[in-house]
């Protein structure tokens, strides 16, 4: 986020706070009483929102930027609620903070954690110019809005949307009436535009799989369940001394499991410690002969011949 992005966001952050302040000033001028609670919320959350905007511009890490922006958006949502537009506040939090910013984060997280912005200026003087222009633009917009709203008569919420439980109900009903009455066409057209954009993006990025390339997973799974072995084949054996695919799995009796042979590779026998308690081990006087296996009464005890898979002659 360099140059252009920087000026743009700096502008929006400052402009926002300025408009809020001018709106407050305008309200104060016309004698509308602002409650204590609202004042406290404004002076606490206003700086927080501003800090969020600044932090978003100034932080190097893209995910941190997104988080600062979330902070600003949350504060805006609370502002809406405090100014008795609860539906707008909830929509702001659910739609912008909950859905859109999460999608942003989703993309940013894939960028990688170590990638942060380079501080090298590619265009000399770009940063100073961006700051000056940003502040200038913010001043212009703020002044313009202040002038435009200077002598506006204040109607009051009750006159516009009715009061809670009154004849014209409250904020939610008022917004619904405006949205689905006066602005229904604009509302529907916006909806159609978004749908077209989404479908278009899907269409452009969608790749059709070549037909007839292979059976689908569902077909293969169905075919598999009609055979004697619906489950997967046993994997190769994993032993302390070998984890190669060539080392076959073992059956409970110690023999090799033919179904675990890898295709195209000769099965290899694993070298292993002599089976404890076996005749061979006792003969060679190994210290742990007659250990756990003997206690369990396993196959080794009476076998004189080579046990399948026991790796005869392994210790040399």
């Amino acid at each position, binding site marked *: 986020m360099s140059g252009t992005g920087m000026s743009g966001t700096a502008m929006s952050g400052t402009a926002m706070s300025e408009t809020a302040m001018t709106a407050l000033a305008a309200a104060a001028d016309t004698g509308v009483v602002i409650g204590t609670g609202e004042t406290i919320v404004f002076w606490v959350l206003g700086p927080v929102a501003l800090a969020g905007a600044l932090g978003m511009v100034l932080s190097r890490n893209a995910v941190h930027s997104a988080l600062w922006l979330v902070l600003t958006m949350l504060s805006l949502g609370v502002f809406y609620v405090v100014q008795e537009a*609860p539906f707008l506040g909830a929509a702001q939090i659910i739609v912008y903070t909950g859905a859109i910013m999460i999608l942003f984060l989703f993309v940013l997280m894939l960028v990688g954690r170590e990638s942060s912005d380079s501080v090298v200026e590619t265009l000399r003087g770009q940063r100073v110019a961006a700051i000056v222009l940003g502040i200038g633009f913010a001043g212009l917009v703020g002044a313009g809005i202040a002038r435009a709203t200077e002598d506006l008569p204040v109607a009051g919420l009750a006159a516009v949307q009715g009061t809670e439980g009154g004849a014209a109900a409250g904020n939610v009903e008022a917004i619904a009436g405006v949205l689905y009455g006066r602005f229904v066409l604009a509302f529907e057209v916006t909806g159609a535009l978004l749908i077209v954009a989404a479908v278009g993006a899907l269409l452009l990025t969608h790749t059709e799989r070549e037909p007839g390339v292979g059976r689908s997973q569902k077909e293969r799974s169905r075919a*598999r369940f009609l055979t004697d072995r619906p489950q997967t084949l046993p994997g190769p054996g994993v032993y302390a001394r070998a984890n190669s695919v060539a080392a076959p799995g073992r059956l409970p009796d110690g023999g090799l499991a033919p179904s675990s042979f890898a*295709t195209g590779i000769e099965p290899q026998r694993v070298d292993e410690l002599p089976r404890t308690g076996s005749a061979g081990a006792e003969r060679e006087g190994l210290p742990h002969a007659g250990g756990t296996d003997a206690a369990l009464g396993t196959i080794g005890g009476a076998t004189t011949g080579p046990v399948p898979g026991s790796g005869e002659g392994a210790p040399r």
Partner: protein
Amino acid sequence: MSVLAAADQPTLEDFGNDVWWIVLIKIVGIFGVLVLMTLFAIVFERKVVARMQQRIGPNRVGPRGYLQSLADGLKLAFKEDIMPALADKPVYFLAPVIATIPAFLAFSVIPLGPTVSIFGERTPLQLIDSPIGVLIVLACSAMGVYGIVLGGWASGSTYPLLGSLRSAAQMISYEIAMGLSIVAVFLYAGSMSTSEIVAAQADGTELSFFGLEFTGPSWFAVLLPVSFVIYVIAVVGETNRAPFDLPEAESELVGGFHTEYSSLKFALFFLAEYINIVTVSALAATLFLGGWRAPWPISIWDGANTGWWPLLWFFAKVVVALFVFVWLRGTLPRLRYDQFMRFGWKVLVPVGLVWILVVATLRAVARESDLDAGQVAVFVGVPIALVLLGGLLLASRMRNRDTRVAAREAAAGGPAPAEPEVLDPRGRDQASGGFPVPPLDLVVPPSPRLRRRESVGAGTVVGTGRRSSSTTDQEDDDV
């Protein structure tokens, strides 16, 4: 809403003018209830799942093992708090907090009971309500996603990142389905405030069925069955519970987004998850199961919906909903991720949209023809829902007909109709779509390490599958 029902039924005007100490009591009460419910839910879940799996479950700590989760919580607090070296420290620290706070906040709009008297003050058993009550719960669950997403990202590790990516996509998708399912409730109740939705389910509509007079059902679960089903499925996805627990699928992602977390930070994630479950259960009770109002046989008793009794009915409903969560976990296997997403976007969302259209049409018809909305729902909506369910059942049987017939034949000893394709050892011809296979006569060059050991005179076989030095070659070949 009859006059009788409205006596203790709080309206929107009753909120926001409590004395400060009443508000404090309510806040502390909700906090306590949520923490206790979490402790209870964990033990409850473990015990119920154990019963379903023919085990006993926790039975050591406390009477019949009921203090097990308390002990586990204490143990967690004393564990070492590990900060991974690659973690993004501020975000790693913030993530569990972000996950927990909205979870607690969401419960503030849940109505627990009617207007009661606390130390002489008449006040509703609900912290706060607003014309957008239910949207606050949705907003809180939207915020809760951040905790999970950031926790996974900030850990600086692969599995948590995958888990958090999954959960971001999953929770957004299922939140849409959840929101759509709730819209029908808004249409019927004519309000988004939780207390008014409960009030809208107070009395069943008077029905006259072939001259037979009776009171119809009033719960939205019955009047809006499709919404209820979508809601139940969507919240299971929304809370990352089995069978939709893909963000923390332990067989795929170790622990998912909280793999790197330990001690109190992990405890906070754990707490948030269980509070979310309790909240969506409470919301299900509020929106679809009549809220704190007593279910039918009890509601005959006049005092059932007054005083502190409704607290009991409410928590009974919440526990039933919790049981369903546990039941699902004990029964269903985890879905594959693509199946899960397809189900959300291609089944739940379209069905939700069509259902809203149907409900809106029914409302319009009811208004035009001067019928009661409840009557229209019972006489038109419920039969339509039944027909739809029957149709779906038939359709699914038709689709699986071939497989069923083939399976029956195979079971009867007939020849397996579809021989599974056996791949040639060298793989299929790559030109016709086979996998690229390395040449099988590949000779691995001798390892320099082995040669060094050989010169010392200890040329032993280290493992199979490594045809390395000349001495081991012969050994391996005659095996």
